[in-house]
Every structure is written in structure tokens, then in C-alpha cells.
């Protein structure tokens, strides 16, 4: 009896795996359809993790591109939600605010400042036309973007002071309007005003969430007064002397503007100050919520996939009643039968997981390729974490175990006699 006890549950795992694999190979198309839910679920997890991480990296990269010393003062209080955007478009930032924020008595340190305006307009040269973004800024803007014209020059502070009708155009704008011919010195028309092209930027792609190749940069004075006929700004960019000074400068800006605008309750601010750190925090929380949401969708897919597995395994148990009876008659224990069916369901789900990982990786690469090539986000990186592979296989195996257990137990409960009689 001790010999019997010692040999209990000693069934070899490799032959068991071979039996299970053979069982699955026998019904190839059914096995393939069964794992479809798992494939989709794991694919979704992989894509969420990989694209989510890639997007987060890209956005953070864009924000970092703004530089940790850069602050942006924008009109209107910080929007609290989508319905709150009306509040943003106020005209609270004008020349006197620029002057006040440039004053070292108000704002600590020796900072650089760039008022900023933009408009969407149709630009034409001869018969060629295109609609694009015109940005009004000064030299600091180009420094922040870290880009220099590859042809011609950047406009000067004198151009800004004199409201010079000059523009530096992005590489796509040049391509659209001029094709292969020379652009420098030519006059383009914006809102019926002739503007001289003095510089062409190299192909740069997306920076600070803008495709630099598609925009036209001009002195802010020209855009504000000549093209738009307004007196306010859309933003005032400030570059602090050092990163450490940023929090103090934020406080100085708030104090200065509140005093100027007679605001005592911070909730009634008609401006808001953004730093790179704030932006990164917001993006971080947004991507976490999105990731959670997508993981919930993937989890539902896995649940549905798991139920599919359970359903098919139950059908399989009924179909193979005779086989189960035979196995029990020739010495299989309940544990042997449970492990055989569990191994089958786990093989199915792991297979589904692996296929899901491969398809997920392929789609992630394709989407990344599209974003890089057609979206202009040249800094997009193909991100495929090994943790996603481990998670994918782990989750798939867990689904197999959980949803395979009930059919496996049903199989193990069959009496050899009943099973052998089954027709």
C-alpha cells in the first residue's frame, strides 16, 4: 500500500502535455476559434501598454522640449473641464501685462519674455494656396523650439519693434507654396497683406504638440496689430534664469497680475500659469485614466474569451466522455483528468496569448510607423516592454486555469462505467 501511496499523482507532465496538445490538434479550427477572444484581449492589453507608453513618452518629450525653465502665462483661469473652455478666451493679457512681467521689480531674476499670438489663415503665393497656422512670437520662441532656419535668417528684435512684414516658414509650407523653387525673398499673401519670406526652417516634425513644418512664424507685433488688429495676446512665454527659480516666479506672476487686475480671490483669476512640471502631471494623470479604461475593455474581452474557452471545454468533455471513462478505467485518477483538461485550456489560452502578443506587437509597430511617418511625430519610439509579454502570457494562463477548472472538474467526476457506456 505504501507503494501505491507513493505512486499517487505521479503522472508525468510531459506525456500529459503531449496528450493535451494532440487533443487540441484534432480540432484545429475549433481550437483557433476558441482562442480568438483571448487573442483579442491579450492584443488589446499589449497595444494599450505599448502605445500608451509610447504616447506618454512622446507627450512628455514634447513637454520637456518646452524646457523646464519655461513658463506660459495664458488668459482665463485654468479650465476645469471640457465645458469650461469659454472661460479661457479672455483678453486679459495685453502690452501692459507684458511690460509688468518684464519688470525685474515685479518678477524675480533676469528672465526672457515672449508675447505670443496665433491665427489660422489662408496663405497664398501666386496660384498656390494653403491654410495654416501663423504664429506671432520673437526670437525666444525659436530658442524654445530649438530650431534655426536652414535657408535665410530669423527675424530680429528690430523687425519685431517695426512690425516688419517678414516670415519664417516651415518646410511643408515651402514645399506647398514654392515646390522646388527658391522661397527666400519672395512675397506671400496672408489676409491680402504681402509678407516677405526671409527664412525656411528645416524639416523638424512635431514639437510642443505643433507640427513645426506646417507653420509660419512672424514677429508677434505684425501678427497682432497688422494681421489680426487686436491688442491682446494668446500667451506670454517666460524663460526663467534657472530651473530653481520657477516656483518663485510663478508666485510673482500671480501676485503681479492679481494686483494689476484687482483680484483678491484666486478662484477668480483671469489668467493661469503653466509650467512643464504641471503639464507633465496633468498628462500623467490623463494617461493613467485612459490606460485604466482601456485595460477594463481588455479585461472584458478576456472575460468573454474565458467564457468561450469554458464553453468549448464543456463541449469537449461531453464529446470525450468515453475517452475519459477509458482513461479512468486504465488507471487515471481524478487529478490526472483534471490536469489533462486544465493543461488543454491553459495551452489554448497561452497560445492565444502568444498570438495576441505577436499581433499586438505588429499593430503597435504599424501604428507607431503611421504616427511617425504620417503624423510628423518623428520622436515616436516603438515601445514594447517585456513586462507586457510576461503580463500577456501570465494573464492568458490565468484565464485558462480559471475558466478551465470547471469543465476539468466535471470531466474528473465522470464514473468510468457511465463514461464507457456513453454513446
Amino acid at each position: 500500500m505504501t507503494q501505491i501511496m507513493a505512486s499517487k499523482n505521479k503522472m508525468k507532465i510531459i506525456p500529459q502535455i503531449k496528450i493535451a496538445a494532440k487533443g487540441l490538434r484534432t480540432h484545429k479550427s475549433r481550437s483557433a476559434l476558441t482562442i480568438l477572444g483571448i487573442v483579442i484581449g491579450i492584443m488589446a492589453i499589449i497595444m494599450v501598454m505599448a502605445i500608451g507608453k509610447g504616447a506618454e513618452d512622446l507627450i512628455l518629450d514634447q513637454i520637456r522640449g518646452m524646457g523646464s525653465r519655461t513658463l506660459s502665462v495664458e488668459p482665463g483661469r485654468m479650465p476645469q473641464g471640457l465645458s469650461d473652455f469659454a472661460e479661457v478666451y479672455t483678453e486679459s493679457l495685453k502690452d501692459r501685462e507684458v511690460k509688468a512681467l518684464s519688470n525685474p521689480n515685479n518678477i524675480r531674476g533676469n528672465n526672457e519674455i515672449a508675447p505670443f499670438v496665433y491665427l489660422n489663415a489662408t496663405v497664398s503665393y501666386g496660384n498656390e494656396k494653403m491654410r495654416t497656422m501663423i504664429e506671432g512670437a520673437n526670437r525666444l520662441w525659436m530658442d524654445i523650439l530649438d530650431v534655426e532656419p536652414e535657408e535665410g535668417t530669423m527675424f530680429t528684435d528690430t523687425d519685431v519693434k517695426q512690425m516688419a512684414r517678414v516670415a519664417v516658414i516651415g518646410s511643408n509650407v515651402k514645399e506647398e507654396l514654392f515646390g522646388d523653387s527658391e522661397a527666400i525673398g519672395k512675397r506671400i499673401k496672408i489676409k491680402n497683406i504681402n509678407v516677405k519670406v526671409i527664412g525656411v526652417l528645416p524639416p523638424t516634425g512635431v514639437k510642443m504638440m505643433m507640427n513645426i513644418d506646417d507653420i509660419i512664424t512672424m514677429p508677434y507685433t505684425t501678427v497682432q496689430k497688422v494681421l489680426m488688429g487686436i491688442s491682446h495676446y494668446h500667451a506670454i512665454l517666460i524663460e526663467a534664469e534657472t530651473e530653481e527659480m520657477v516656483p518663485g516666479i510663478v508666485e510673482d506672476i500671480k501676485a503681479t497680475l492679481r494686483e494689476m487686475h484687482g483680484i483678491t480671490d484666486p478662484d477668480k483669476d483671469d489668467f493661469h500659469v503653466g509650467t512643464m512640471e504641471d503639464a507633465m502631471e496633468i498628462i500623467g494623470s490623463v494617461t493613467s485614466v485612459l490606460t485604466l479604461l482601456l485595460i477594463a475593455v481588455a479585461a472584458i474581452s478576456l472575460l468573454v474569451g474565458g467564457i468561450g474557452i469554458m464553453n468549448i471545454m464543456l463541449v469537449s468533455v461531453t464529446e470525450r466522455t468515453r475517452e475519459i471513462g477509458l482513461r479512468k478505467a486504465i488507471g487515471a485518477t481524478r487529478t490526472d483528468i483534471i490536469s489533462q483538461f486544465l493543461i488543454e485550456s491553459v495551452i489554448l489560452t497561452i497560445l492565444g496569448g502568444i498570438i495576441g502578443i505577436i499581433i499586438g506587437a505588429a499593430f503597435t509597430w504599424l501604428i507607431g510607423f503611421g504616427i511617425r511617418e504620417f503624423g510628423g511625430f518623428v520622436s515616436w519610439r516603438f515601445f514594447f516592454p517585456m513586462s507586457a509579454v510576461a503580463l500577456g502570457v501570465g494573464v492568458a494562463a490565468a484565464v485558462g486555469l480559471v475558466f478551465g477548472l470547471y469543465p476539468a472538474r466535471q470531466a474528473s467526476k465522470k464514473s468510468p462505467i457511465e463514461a464507457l457506456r456513453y454513446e
Partner: protein
Amino acid sequence: MALIEAKNIRKVYNHEMVPLEVLKGMTFDIEEGEFVAIMGPSGSGKSTLLHILGFLDPQTSGTCLFNGKGMEDYTEDEIAHIRNKEMGFVFQAFNLLPRTNVYDNVKLPLIYSDRPEKEWHDLIMKAIKAVGMEHRLEHETSKLSGGEKQRVAIARALVNDAKVIFADEPTGNLDSKSGAMIMKTLQELNQQHGYTIILITHETYTAEHAQRIIKIIDGQIKSDHKVKKRHDANHGFKK
């Protein structure tokens, strides 16, 4: 001590709350090395008796001992192990795994045994040779004739060196020639290799291949006698 001791075995099934007594108290012994045929008409309870003797189904009352111990003396796993190590089963419907070759079908009991894997090949080949199926190793069982299928089933029953082979109507699905071959194989296993064989059949002619015939009718033993002159399977087989 006899290999199998059956004392007043009763089996009652409850069919839709109505008790149906299939075995009405049977007592007999089977010694190691015997070739016993349990014979009776359809519905006489012979298959039920075989299931009880083979530890596949418990009796309702009475005792059925194998090597001095009853099913009730063991746990479910221990019973599975005894079936694996000490008993071999041959069924009328063969019960081979479809889409699986001869070699793998014969291997099946070893998967559930405690024999080291390195011994498996020799054991499988020995069993397959004993039934003369070594030329069909790689054939899927669904492509074999009925007689060949039953020989594979016998090899599967032998592979783990069982003490006793329970054969439930092994010739029931076979033509006369194949049936004769199977009976010859069983006789050889008994005479040359000393296997105890318990054969279930409703055919007198098949039963006469055994050394002893226990006839049962309506769940009771009608007669239990030795066969005077054993039928030699080589001399023809009539259904």
C-alpha cells in the same frame, strides 16, 4: 488465497426511484492463472459483474476481494492505481483513442503508472509483439480492421504487466475469423504467459476457449464448471 473472492455479491440500481436488482447474490473464487468465462444471455448481469470484479463499480452488498482486499479498503486514487498496475481491460467496442497510432494507444496505461519513462518503449514493444501488431506501429487505430483494433486493445491491457485481464465481449464486434484470432491470443496469454483471464461472453463457443465457465441467468449463478476439453482456437471459430 484466491486472486478474486466474490461473496454474495448483490448489485441494485435505482432506475427512476424503482430499485432494480441486477445481481442477486453471487459467490465464487477465481485463482491466479485461471481462464474463466462468465457466460449468460443479454441482460443477465454479466457486464455488471465484470465491472465489480474489475473495481470499476462497487457492489451494493456482499464482498468482492482482489488479492484479499475489497474496493472499500482503498481510496479512489489507490483503486485507480490497482486498476492501472494489476488489471487490464478489453472492451467489446475496443475503446481506442481515435486519430492516435497503435504505439501511443498501447502506451496509455504507462502514462498513469509509476514506471520510469525509459522502460516504456521496451514494455510497449513487448506488448505489441505479444499480439502480433508490430508491423502496424505507426498506423492510426481508425484505419485498422476490427480484429486488429482488438489486438491493440489487448496489448494496451498487457503493457503494464497486469495480473488479470478482464475481457468484456471481446469478439462481439468481430467477424468469425478475427474472433478466432482474438481468442487464440487470449489463450496464448493464459497458457504461455500465465495471465489470469476473465472473459464475458454470451456465446457458448467463445466461452469454451476458457478453462472454466460460470453461467449466469437473471443475476444468479446457474452453473460453474470446468471445460472438459478446451476448444482450440486454431481449429476454427463459429459465431
